[in-house]
């Protein structure tokens, strides 16, 4: 099972946090802990990490002794971190991170860190089409896109019906207002390209 999905940037600021098991202590301490574990590792090390240190924080339901592993991937300024137990295949999770990034990329058309900041709800919706309750729901990028767009369409409709004067201003996915767009960034080409970690 996947216990947590975290995205934080290279300075440790969380951009997305989602826990699938109840956590015992403050999320901030936990994120700091994971950040310190992950950020100290050099690029050529492996993407997996045994994390007995995390057990006091993420205690699974029946108490002691679940072995947790951290699987992470670094894309430009962001770390994508999954905390999983032994029932998951490490490489499978690594692939899943890639699927997540590709889905974000499709939804936001060249996703960047700012998208995750200003569209945090959308990022969560996308995640919820990939993982549900700690288990893999869908891995087909097309299927994920379809579900996300369907939700966006319904939301837009409900928004339009609520604000008849808004002239369809209900946000389509990816329509960032120009003022917020910054060139900060890691483009999707670099993100998903060969050899990206």
């Amino acid at each position, binding site marked *: 099972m996947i216990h947590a999905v975290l995205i934080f940037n290279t300075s440790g600021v969380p951009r997305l946090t989602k826990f699938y098991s109840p956590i015992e202590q403050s*999320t901030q301490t936990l994120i700091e802990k994971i950040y310190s574990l992950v950020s100290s590792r050099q690029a050529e090390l492996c993407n997996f990490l045994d994390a007995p240190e995390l057990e006091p924080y993420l205690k699974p339901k029946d108490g*002691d002794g679940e072995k947790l592993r951290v699987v992470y991937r670094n894309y430009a300024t962001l770390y994508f971190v999954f905390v999983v137990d032994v029932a998951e295949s490490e490489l499978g999770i690594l692939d899943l991170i890639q699927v997540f990034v590709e889905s974000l990329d499709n939804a936001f058309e060249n996703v960047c860190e700012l998208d995750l900041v200003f569209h945090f709800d959308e990022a969560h919706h996308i995640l919820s089409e990939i993982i549900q*309750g700690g288990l*893999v729901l869908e891995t087909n990028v097309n299927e994920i896109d379809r579900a996300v767009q369907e939700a966006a369409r319904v939301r837009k409709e409900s928004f339009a019906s609520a604000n008849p004067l808004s002239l369809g201003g209900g946000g389509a996915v990816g329509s960032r207002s120009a003022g917020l767009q910054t060139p900060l960034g890691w483009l999707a080409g670099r993100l998903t390209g060969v050899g990206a970690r």
Partner: protein
Amino acid sequence: MATNMRGLTQFIADIRGARVRELEEKRINKEMANIRKRFKDGNLDGYQKKKYVAKVIFTYILGYKVDIGHMEAVNLISSSKYSEKQIGYLAVTLLMHENSDFLRLVVNSIRKDLNDNNEIHNCLALHAIANVGSQEMAEALAEDVHRLLISPTSENFVRKKAALTLLRLYRKHPDVIPAQEWALRIVSIMDDPDLGVVLCVTSLILALAQDHPDAYAICYQKAVDRLNRLVVEHEYPATYSYYKVPIPWLQVKLLRLLQYYPPSDDPTLQVMLQEVLQTIMNNCNEPSRNVQHNNAQHAVLFEAINLAIHLDTNSPLVNTAAVLLARFISSKETNVRYLGLDTMAHLAARTDNLEAIKRHQGTIILSLRDKDISVRRRALDLLYSMCDVDNSELIVGELLRYLKVADYGLREEMVLKIAILTEKYASTYKWYVDTILELLSAAGDHVGEEVWYRVVQIVTNTDDLQAYAAKVVFEYLKSPSSHESLVKVGGYILGEYGHLIANEPGYSPIEQFQVLHSKSQFCMAPTRALLLSTYIKWVNVFPEIKPQLVNVFERYRHVLDVDLQQRACEFYALSLRPEDDELLQNVCEEIPPFPPRESALLNRLNKKHADSEDKRLWAQGTNGSLERQPSKLMRKPTLAADTNGQRSDSNGNISQDIASSLAGLDLTSSPVAMQSPSSLSDPSATLAAKGIPRLTAGPNVDRWFDKLLYTPDGVLYEDVQIQIGIKSRYQGPVGQVAVYIGNKMSAPLTSFTTTLHNEEGEALSASFVKIAPSTLAPKTQIQQIVQVECKKVFRRPPILVVSFLAGAHQAIAVRLPIVITKFLEGVKLGPSDFFERWKLIGGPPREAQSIFPISLDATGHIDLVKQRQVVSGHGFQILEGIDPNPSNIVGAGIVHTAVEGKVGCLLRLEPNREAKLSRITLRSTSEEVASEAQKLLQKPLGADANGGPAEKRTL
């Protein structure tokens, strides 16, 4: 969308603009205060609520604790606008945990959304339950979720979510999920054409099958079939190919599911699985330069290797795997090295033959110095798993050397492992003591109490070791700083066995005392107490240093620590007693050996690594159990067959009554209470748990079956949907039964599955030659061949289960007409031969006899044609001219079995027209054959077997 809310955008921008953390916190506090006030004032419209809740969520994501907005989120959920509902659900899943009181308030809204016609609302509700589902929700909503999963009108994206939601509820509250009852319906979804649905339902089955392996046993076949279609047949939609690998996640899950079951006996499945695994391994021989492709392929490969190891550690596949693993552990890719070591540890824990791994010992030891701690950990696990008597000194030596530079996080575990290996594979006691003491002095802080207790136990129980241990520990104590654990071991061992070495130069009592006592001042109270005990022992054996010892006691009589003070007082009094007093001697009697017990170390290690969700059938090296035995969860052969023993059949009673009223027919043996095979259909609760289907009942089912017992071809089952026909051929102990299954409807049958339940696997083998296709087109028929072999005499025919989806999930379970007499071959015997054998076999128990009522034909005569047909249909050769009475039938035959060989069988049937009774006598060299054949023949010959006109139709 968040950006449609200007206030929210502004809030986010402000926080981003905050240069230091204090400013950020200030801004957040201000905003939260504002929101709190707004919420308190009330009167907010949906948009405002949504906006404020979104701000609360954002604050939460930043890692701040938030304690407002719960109630508003609950309100938003029941909004009719999707945009508000969605934010509401997001807030519920993020802000609340499963024990939150607020969740009570949302159960009704969630149920409403679950039952909504709008699928997208169903999805929101399912997702919420899957994330925060509590026990209470499980009770209230499990039925609804299950309905969404199996309803034929559900969209695929709803069914996927429903499957995972059901899993969550099952985990939270297994009692409310009738997992066994739902088993077949749920497993049938594994045949779904949508791979996303299959993936989710496989996750669900992974959990359910672990708890109910027998009820879900059919998933084994489904998993093999699906893997075969993905890997070998390349049958999958292109969109589910992930970097050219067909849906690796599903493959991994299926491969893992197969590890929860013991290897299948079915040769067809074995062959298919073999091919799948072989193909997966071959695929990896062409490395690609695409990282994602490699990742996905390796993910599948590693799981495939694990499965191959699970199936048979000596198979050629595992040899191939070992070669691959060897390549992986020296790979340039760190991920591959890591997983290579991990999987090799699994192999080492399971295999009997470590040679293949030992060849790479050097590489593995080098991995202990890998620059990545993750890899180092795996190397440690592997070394632990692969250690045996031959290489223990080397491996333990390496581990000890590495221990001194190892990461702190690793040390405790290392110490435990070293201690266990040392004890387990010690070749000499000397080596054991040396190693453990070195361990204590090298990593004292990380040595748990268990380790030194164990040393003391072993030294006490091993006479040869005592003097040596005393000497070595004394040497260690002489070094300027020794760890407290070492002082404890020293105190104990010198106290007990110091006198053994006291006569040697350098080990005199006074020297022992000085060395030990010099450590005392750096030690904690419990250690000092232990040292006091040592001293009193010395008072007994070393009278020459008694003054010094008494001096110590005297001083300790006044310390504050109660334990120390009491000991000192008692020991002081004890040591001042007169010389000839025997009390001291008695008190200080040498310690008796400890009773043998399991090493506390293993317990400790096991406790550290109690797996929870994953009950694969192997114990990895890290689980501490180094016994190289196959999986501990391996179940006993499933069936305790006795479920049908208690039923006394009504037929039996009838024949008994008649028998007693008809003494004229010379009944030597009372008839065996007849037990028709139909009594197999038993109270099904226990059967379902074991995965045995309940037999389908129907007016004709038994008749069809009985008829097929003495005819090779015919109808086995028929209803409005399907028809099952049989054609069979037998030769010696083997046979081939062709099962024809036809779909009579104008719609296809999906998730079509055929399985065999054979209760007597040792006596009879029966298996399909291939797996049936999962869809049966309308108005078509398929043929499934069953290969059977009779190894020994058996009683229960195998059960054929045909299940399919046609609207609802349906299963038909009927017995296959495979009985012992099918392996009977007639032999011609002359009268003298026959009587000689008849006599040779003799009466009971090798004779089975019964008397039963028969019915006469229309003309009032015995239906001789039918009788002869039944007898010869069962395989007997009818012998003419042996019995003078022309209506009597005499027959002979040989039963062929593969293991027990040939069994002769003779028959005599004496129908009596006046009494409307018939007597059947069977004599066989095997008691079982005689009684079994008697039962089988009596049924169709008896009065109740004469069917009406319907019977003619089936012919």
